[in-house]
């Protein structure tokens, strides 16, 4: 199924941006503020630079192999056994991301709006929608993201501007926060670890070629990091970095503070629609990417038979953390540190091996 549906630049950029934005609604901004203090927004800018380097790395891999995605290239460059191992790691990475986002978004919903609802019920909603979205396909997903993007954007802008009476610009000082090492290295690497570049390399067949991959992914990164930087700035200037690092869901906390007169207050519930939609897109896209990766690895014609089993794995994985702090800790410590393996280290190996094989002459079997 992969590659049969093509969509344009705008749809692809928005799809990846929306997916990348998902992390600003959960506890990721808090983790960054905890790491970098008031300079968390600078860490975000550093992460943006690192993500652009990652985009270039994937572009180097994809450019000599037009019409192939990272899964095909791994199979071709590393051979069947190593290629399969690499691709399976990619697939399970996507599954882990989907499981953790399902859990953290469901926890966020319980905190913000549905305290009496069983978490398994909320997670089932995410999983079923992800199956539906992956079953219908990437084209519809991209168009849905494009269609809803103006509403998402206006919601976020409304939130950020609605907090303007509470901004205190003094809060951004000291400008280098917890020190250059924390801000540029630790914070930069945490914020620069993104799933969407690898994900874009998996769905690249829908992008009209590697050149478009570079355009689409780099723009998506710029936009995604722009929103993260803005949110961090507003968070630091509104809550101060001290309070900010104690909030599990900073976006929700900020939404609760919006006060636009006596009639328009406590509007955080409206943002549930926005972040719920973004969470669904994120989980759907990662489920789709894992199904496509596995289908490509095992040379299956259709990814759809894999959706139910993978959805079940995601559901099981998401229910494993004992409680919300466990899920947040897992998300912060494990995924953000492990992310560099499938998104940077493994692609570097693929790039090196493919280059070496190319120099060795056209003797590889593919």
């Amino acid at each position: 199924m992969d590659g049969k549906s093509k969509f344009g630049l705008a749809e692809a950029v928005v799809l990846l941006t929306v997916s990348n934005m998902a992390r600003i609604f959960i506890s990721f901004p808090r983790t960054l503020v905890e790491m970098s203090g008031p300079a968390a927004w600078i860490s975000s800018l550093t992460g943006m630079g690192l993500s652009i380097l990652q985009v270039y790395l994937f572009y180097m891999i994809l450019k000599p192999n037009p019409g192939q995605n990272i899964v095909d290239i791994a199979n071709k460059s590393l051979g069947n056994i190593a290629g399969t191992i690499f691709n399976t790691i990619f697939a399970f990475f996507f599954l882990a991301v989907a499981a953790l986002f399902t859990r953290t978004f469901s926890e966020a919903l319980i905190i913000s709006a549905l305290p009496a609802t069983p978490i398994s019920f909320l997670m089932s909603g995410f999983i079923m929608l992800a199956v539906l979205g992956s079953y219908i396909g990437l084209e519809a997903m991209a168009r849905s993201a494009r269609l809803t993007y103006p509403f998402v954007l206006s919601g976020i802008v409304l939130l950020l501007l609605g907090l303007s009476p509470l901004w205190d610009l003094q809060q951004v000082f000291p400008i280098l926060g917890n020190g250059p090492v924390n801000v540029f290295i630790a914070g930069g690497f945490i914020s620069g670890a993104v799933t969407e570049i690898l994900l874009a390399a998996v769905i690249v067949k829908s992008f009209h070629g590697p050149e478009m991959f570079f355009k689409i992914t780099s723009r998506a990164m710029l936009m995604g990091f722009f929103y993260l930087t803005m949110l961090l700035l507003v968070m630091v200037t509104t809550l101060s970095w001290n309070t900010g690092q104690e909030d599990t869901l900073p976006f929700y906390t900020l939404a609760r503070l919006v006060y636009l007169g006596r009639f328009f207050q406590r509007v955080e519930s409206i943002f549930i629609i926005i972040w719920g939609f973004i969470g669904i897109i994120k989980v759907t896209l990662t489920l789709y990417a894992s199904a496509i990766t596995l289908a490509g690895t095992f040379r299956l014609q259709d990814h759809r038979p894999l959706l139910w089993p993978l959805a079940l794995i995601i559901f099981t994985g998401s229910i494993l953390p004992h409680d919300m702090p466990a899920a947040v800790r897992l998300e912060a410590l494990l995924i953000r540190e492990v992310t560099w393996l499938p998104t940077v280290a493994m692609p570097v190996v693929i790039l090196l091996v493919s280059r070496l094989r190319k120099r060795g002459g056209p003797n590889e079997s593919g």
Partner: protein
Amino acid sequence: MKNLLKQVMRILTYQDTTFREGFILKENDFDNKKTGASGAGPKSQEEDGGKKSAGPSRRRARTLRRPGSEGSMESGGADTAKVSTILDRNRETIESIYGLPVNKDIIIRDYTIGTEPPVKSFLVYIDGMSSRTDLNFLMQNLMLEAREISRDPIASAPSILYRLLPGSQAIMLDSFDKIVDAVNYGDTAIFVQGSPQALVVETKGWEHRPVEKPRSEQAISGPQESFIENLRANTALVRKIIRSEKLYTEMLSVGKRYRSDVAVMYMSDLANPDLVKEVKRRISSINVDYITDTGMLEQYIEDSPMNLNPQTHYTERPDRVAAFLAEGKVAIILSGSPYALVVPTTMYAQLHTGEETYLRWQYGTFLRYTRTFSFYLALLLPGLYLAAVLFHQEMIPTDLLLAIAGNRERVPFPTVVEMLMMEFSFELVREAGLRIPSPIGSTIGIVGALILGQAAVQANLFSPVIVIVVAVTGLASFSIPNYSLAFAVRTYRFFYIIMGSMLGFYGITIALFIQIMLTTNLKSFGVPYLSPIAPRTYAGGDVVTRLPIHMQIRRPDYINPQDNVRAPEEPRGWVKGNGGGGGDGRQE
């Protein structure tokens, strides 16, 4: 005394039940057949088509389905399928096909053509379908005027056609299939002794209503004509607006048992040839016994029958059809239906009325935004209200929350039940208002409003806020101009009510995601249903915001017309610096 005793005995003794039912429609062998030999079923058609050529198999099917035709048609074989030179044999065939004398609609009129020597002839028509004036004029020519005009001793069909028939449309046919088709459609067939062909003269003259104002797509400005049940009048109404030789009308037919004509109209220099081909392919491939309305035809040609959204544009306004044709779309008009279908369509086109184009752009844009807002209200308002009241009370300002709670205090039902009952009652009023005869139909609104509004609130059955929410939602749904789309929105609304009452805004998000995914995946004749927004293509400045008319210089891109350009960069030739007084200056 004897009778009395008999009656007493009848009362005291057991009597078998008298069988009072006069008629029972018993099952017979036909009920066991899934697809009969009549050719209506697709299977039999395919089987026939697979074994034989299309012509003979269709003829056989037609022969079998006519009452009383079994003996004569089958025994006659190939001779009876063609017009014979022997007049009596032709008459027998016609009588056999139409089941005369049982069938009283068919009129066979014997007469003599007034040539020298006189020639025997008869004509066939259906009473009520043909114009009596035309028929009288026709017979007057053949019987009386022929004597003066023609001295030709051989009165063959061609000579009559070229010299005696005054009808504007007359053709010679030798196949009974085609002759019967024409007679069934109001034409008159003339059989002449010694001629192997029949003359078919156009005498259609059935009763039909005149062109009236649109009933379901009313507009204040712009043309006030609507389609009627006459196909040719409908094509003429469109052609009257688009006076161009590039407007093509192709005629197809649908229905295997009762055929209906379908006109496929398009601009040959604009419409994408692949689109036209696909429209014709879908219509031609329909294998069903009959289709009487474009609403039925729509369901046979749409891409996704399971999706709620209408995938063809259903309109009764010729000016709308003309505007769509000028964009490169294709119109489908069915005989007997006062509506036309336009394909492909998008959801945004279904939210337009055409009136916005006739108004100045500011007014048009204002109308569009009002309608867009109404669309969202009609879809989401009850669901959002329930979600807010049941799950997110903190977002309702305290005064309003107290007012709502105070009003709900004495209402015995849960809010969701209250909402569903009110919505159902509203649908009931709407449906009853449509079905009740018009003289008392207007009162139903007042009665409904009184019962649902004041009385129900006073009886503490509903809270006033629910009445307001449902009323506003109802008004909003009425502002959706497309009847089918309004239906879809009404149906979707119930999903939002259920999801909003179950999971609050998260439920609304789930329902929204499902609806958006299904809708973005939808296509109408190969065009994404949410074009030109998702996917983003050039829209021509006419989606929600309507740009000034002189800025709409290109046709929408999603239709892929043969010519994208509607007008030059500055279509107003009189504007300074633009060559002043442009255009060909042609005057009406």
